[in-house]
């Protein structure tokens, strides 16, 4: 399997890779037999990079994020996160995770949800440069600090969840289909905002999606995964200039890229 080396972004090439996976395989044993979720995944993302993971359902995209965040131990292969063990990076709070359906604690207000990472984990819970209140302002939720999750729309909940993931200034942000359940208008808006946050914080982002347009618009590179077993099909660099604007999706390069991604996906 060819190594998917993502050595170039528009930023300075970093000395160490933020994420470095070599021949990572994950197998689960279930009552219906063993399943290979990921097979021989090679992957490298430089610090400050933005990689989108695109693939059909069952290709192990979510499993891959869970390997990177030390929630799942790979059956074999090596995982280096920010130059060390994934567990060490997690313990240092260098990893922020944004879940599919926001995963806010329903009994906590927006502000209390953002504050949660500072309350748990004992000595690991160092505060970041920005206060929880400033982070809520960053994601456009000033004035909603005391709202409970059920009082917020799906898009607003996901904004809170992004603010929560940023509270420890993570060097690596993992996003598991964060905008999958949102309407297209909200999703477009949040895509642009996410790119702004990425520019401003300089964090590395791994973004899982099943939307071709989202993958192409956000990523500096798109990693295409094939299903059953989950494996790398192709790594596609995105030729769009930075900073990105939503109108760029009407450009010829973008349309060609999306068409290419679709053709590859059909064979996955």
């Amino acid at each position: 399997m060819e190594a998917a080396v993502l050595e170039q972004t528009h930023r300075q090439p970093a000395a160490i890779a933020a994420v470095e996976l070599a021949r990572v395989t994950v197998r689960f044993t279930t009552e219906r037999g063993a399943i290979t979720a990921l097979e021989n995944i090679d992957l490298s993302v430089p610090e400050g990079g933005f990689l989108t993971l695109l693939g059909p359902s069952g290709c192990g995209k979510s499993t891959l994020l869970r390997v990177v965040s030390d929630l799942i131990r790979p059956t074999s292969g090596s995982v280096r996160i920010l130059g060390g063990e994934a567990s060490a990076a997690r313990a240092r709070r260098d990893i922020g995770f944004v879940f599919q359906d926001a995963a806010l604690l329903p009994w906590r207000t927006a502000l209390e949800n953002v504050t949660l990472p500072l309350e748990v984990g004992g000595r690991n819970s160092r505060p970041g440069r920005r206060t929880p209140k400033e982070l809520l302002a960053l994601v456009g939720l000033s004035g909603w600090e005391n709202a409970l999750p059920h009082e917020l729309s799906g898009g607003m909940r996901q904004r809170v969840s992004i603010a929560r993931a940023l509270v420890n200034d993570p060097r690596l942000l993992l996003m598991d289909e964060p905008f999958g359940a949102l309407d297209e208008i909200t999703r477009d808006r949040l895509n642009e905002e996410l790119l702004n946050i990425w520019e401003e914080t300089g964090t590395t982002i791994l973004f899982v999606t099943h939307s071709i347009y989202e993958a192409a618009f956000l990523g500096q590179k798109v990693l295409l995964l094939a299903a059953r077993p989950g494996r790398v099909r192709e790594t596609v660099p995105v030729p769009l200039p930075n900073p990105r604007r939503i109108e760029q999706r009407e450009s010829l390069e973008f349309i060609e890229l999306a068409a290419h991604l679709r053709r590859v996906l059909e064979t996955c």
Partner: protein
Amino acid sequence: MSASTIEAAPVPETFSNDDAAQARFEATRRYLAWRRRLLPVIATVSILVIWEVSVHLFDIKPYIAPAPTAVAVKFVEKFGLLMTNLGPTAIEAISGFLLGNIAAVLIATSFVYQRTVEEAFFPVAVMVHTIPVMAYAPILVLLLGNGMSAKVAIAAMICFFPTLVNMTRGLRNVNPQHMELMRILSASPTEIFFKLRFKNSLPYLFSALKIAAATSVIGAIVGEWIGSTTGIGALIIQATYNFDSPLLYATIVVGSCFSAFFFGIISWAERISLKWNVAETI
């Protein structure tokens, strides 16, 4: 920073000022609220009126079925007696409620952390739960004597099982993503318990507590049937044996009013502490 310039909040101008429409909306809402309150009252009053008329019309003997007015007269006449008997029953029911539920919560917690304990003791709890309260009440009176402790124990046992089952489920049914979040944050087991599992179990706990509020009173009353001289249960037995049906009915009214009051307090506590849980609170 353009992220913060994008409007996230719905602007107030979304709602235009149409006073007439607003007034109509408010009037409909008030009407519906009154309807909801009045209909049960009308239904209750109708039943009482039909009952009263039937007793006179068919000349039913007071010891077979007393007229509501006779019950009301007895209630006023024997108010002191009824209240002195409510005292012990209330104490037994509340103590049993606390004891049974605290035990259930602690055991549910041990179930969640020690599967072995659950595997060993849950079948035992199910077995005990299948025994009717009328069957184990005499056993507990024999074991604990004729004092209050036997009644407290009966009330506790009747509360125990629903809370155990609900609480175990509530502590365990944690959103897997919340669990993953806690693991990413390196949360300690204590933090996971108090900041996630326990909070998550509260809606389950309260639905069990609402059941327990009513059943603990039943437990205390059943306990008093066996050789007790005071309490609502004892008064029920005495009134029955004396063919004093009006007193029997008045006693039942006092007992069920207390149950309803207890239930109301728990519902109120639920509303206060579960504001976030829109699915459960009506």
